[in-house]
């Protein structure tokens, strides 16, 4: 049996389901027509509906920030609230922030390019430059919550969310933090969407009002998911799940590595992480079959959640929201021919 390392005690998210603390109530979401930039015909994606961050987290000022930073601030605040943590009672130098992102602050990076296009490189606007750095969201989370522990932003092709969770757990395991705020997210901008389109990655459902189906491209999404992770037994509170161990690789021996990680553990549930890869669900099912046979139940990544490199944490929240059976769960994602990420969790 793999020992439980850390408990997930708080959840927050800013997603197409809205800004929410805790689990996400059952609700259908559909792709929406993109209106933020001119498109040649209908273009759809799972979008975060505009909202005022200060209406969710009083006092929050986000006017000059990338939406990714603003959402990270809201999601982290909701997760901390959900965990019932009063940070004024914590040693803030022992609170870590680990943020996973595939593309970082794309919105303000594009704004800086706009500025260069308009005024030349010699006349760029300084304000988007530092706010466009990939680590800006994690830094703002530290600044807002006044937490001074390790502050790290990680990016990993299709597995940024899983990698963030694994590395946050590692900081706790090695005594480098007592508490970790783990986040993962991306924003959808015109340059990002049109890149997916030019690469031929989008689902037909992006171009018409048909329902989203698996296996024919993907429908992009955006948002930030946040978890509060703390060592087991640190507080007597309910835990949504306990994290035991995790592995990822973009080109590894998936079955062998995951079996090694599981040891004698036999997960009874496989949660499909979805990730950024189109058609990921079928390849994940195939890998799950090789590892657990057909005995484990499968919680599929809801298509309605959309996909990005960082959607695994949102999919985990959605899976937990669907009230899966208690026992051991394997959160599994695949990418390309040999890429995989696997997290072993205990569900209460």
């Amino acid at each position: 049996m793999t020992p439980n390392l850390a408990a997930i005690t708080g959840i927050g998210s800013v997603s197409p389901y809205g800004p929410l603390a805790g689990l996400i109530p059952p609700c259908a979401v559909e792709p929406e027509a993109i209106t933020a930039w001119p498109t040649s015909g209908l273009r759809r994606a799972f979008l975060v509906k505009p909202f005022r961050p200060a209406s969710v987290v009083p006092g929050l000022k986000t006017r000059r920030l990338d939406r990714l930073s603003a959402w990270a601030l809201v999601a982290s605040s909701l997760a901390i609230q959900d965990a019932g943590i009063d940070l004024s009672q914590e040693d803030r130098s022992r609170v870590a922030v680990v943020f996973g992102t595939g593309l970082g602050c794309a919105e303000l990076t594009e704004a800086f390019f706009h500025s260069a296009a308009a005024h030349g490189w010699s006349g760029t606007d300084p304000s988007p430059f530092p706010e466009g750095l990939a680590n800006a969201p994690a830094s703002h989370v530290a600044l807002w919550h006044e937490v001074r522990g390790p502050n790290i932003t990680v990016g990993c092709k299709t597995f940024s969310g899983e990698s963030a969770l694994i590395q946050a757990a590692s900081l706790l395991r090695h005594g480098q933090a007592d508490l970790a705020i783990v986040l993962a997210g991306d924003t959808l901008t015109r340059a990002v969407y049109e890149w997916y389109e030019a690469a031929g990655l989008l689902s037909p459902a992006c171009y018409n009002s048909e329902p989203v189906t698996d296996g024919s491209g993907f429908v992009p999404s955006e948002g930030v998911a946040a978890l509060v992770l703390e060592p087991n037994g640190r507080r007597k509170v309910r835990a949504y799940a306990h994290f035991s161990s995790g592995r990822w690789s973009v080109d590894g021996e998936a079955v062998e590595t995951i079996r090694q990680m599981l040891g004698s553990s036999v997960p009874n549930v496989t949660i499909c992480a979805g990730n950024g890869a189109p058609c990921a669900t079928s390849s994940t099912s195939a890998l799950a079959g090789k590892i657990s046979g057909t005995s484990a139940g499968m919680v599929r990544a809801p298509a309605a959640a959309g996909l990005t490199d960082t959607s695994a944490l949102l999919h985990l929240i959605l899976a937990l929201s669907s009230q899966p059976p208690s026992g051991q769960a394997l959160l599994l994602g695949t990418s390309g021919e040999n890429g995989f990420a696997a997290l072993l969790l205990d569900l209460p």
Partner: protein
Amino acid sequence: MTDSRKTIVVTGIGVVSPYGIGVDCLQAGMLSGKCCLAPTKDLYPGFVGSTAQVSGLPPLQNEFGPRYSRSDRLAMVAARDAVWNLDYESTALRGSGVFMASTVAGLSEIDPGIAEDPAAWYRRGGLARAASYPPARVADAVGEYLGVRGPRCAISAACASSAAAIALAANMLLDGAASMVLAGGSDALCPFTLSGFNSLQALDPDPCRPFDRNRKGLNLGEGAAVLVLETLERAEARNANVLAVLRGWAMTNDAFHSTAPHTQGKGLADCMRLAMEMAEVSGDDIGYVNAHGTGTSLNDVAETNAYETVFHERKRPVPVSSTKSYFGHCLGAAGALEAIIAIIAVRCGVLLPTLRLTDPIESPSADWLRGKVLCHEVPLAMSVSAGFGGSNAALIFGNGQCRSGRS
């Protein structure tokens, strides 16, 4: 008693710097006192300043996937240099992880045309260029190039990124997530970052003067540095040459301001203390500090205050220098490059001075190295990094004699 499973050692070093390819080139160039910072005018119209550029980088075409950015190519050459003595087909290398930092990554491949009409820009050949944009691409490029198949990750902590990459790689090794990790950073000079720092009025048009009262800002450089990290147990099992021991590491955040450091350097001081706690050493044991030392007004004062906090009880001031005075600030590569200079200090007993430091900031606890190279034994050296967003990282290296592992 050394616990070889919990002792992290450095068994390979790879560098691409404005001095050329390889650590010998870097060491010889710096020992000669050569400054690589030179007037630059061609990076974009209207830019006038000093930068340090890498010349003679091999083209390295990608036959299998996206185009390689300049940051990718710098990283690939440095990684190849780091593993030159390893069999590429060996299980140890194939199972390795790759933790690479970059702040620029593929931004060097993108031009302002993307902002006006992305679809048209992609049709004009931008699609392949944009594929190198995600920060994770640098680690993937290294992994693909060397056939390394373990976990890959990009680390972003602004200018502390590659020091953080080394720290996180050490954590992963302790977790048993990989047999070996190639950890470091890579950043290319490009108009985006030059223009950004220029717009913030952070650049000194002349070669920078870290820790000098008359400092006027930083210079940007480019390069890549990669360390091969593994546990001592693994290194001994394959009879590897241990170049240094990573005795302690720590990461903190100032939580003070989005771009300015804490005025008293509190977060940086905490970071140094935590690294020393992990290494089980005191301030008196540190023989050399390779400073972050950018040459900006705010950084150098904050950093000096941090040294005062951490080292004020020392019997003698701690020797400190900023090697950014030789080749500028290499951003995402800086922490790893400077870690290598700290390793040179413990391996070879050479302490490099800060160039152009004629009127240093007053600091009772720092012995600002200037003028000439010092040669004496240095059992432990610390490399200190900081960055936008309040990120801090500290790494402590010892020579190959392992004294204790962590419990």
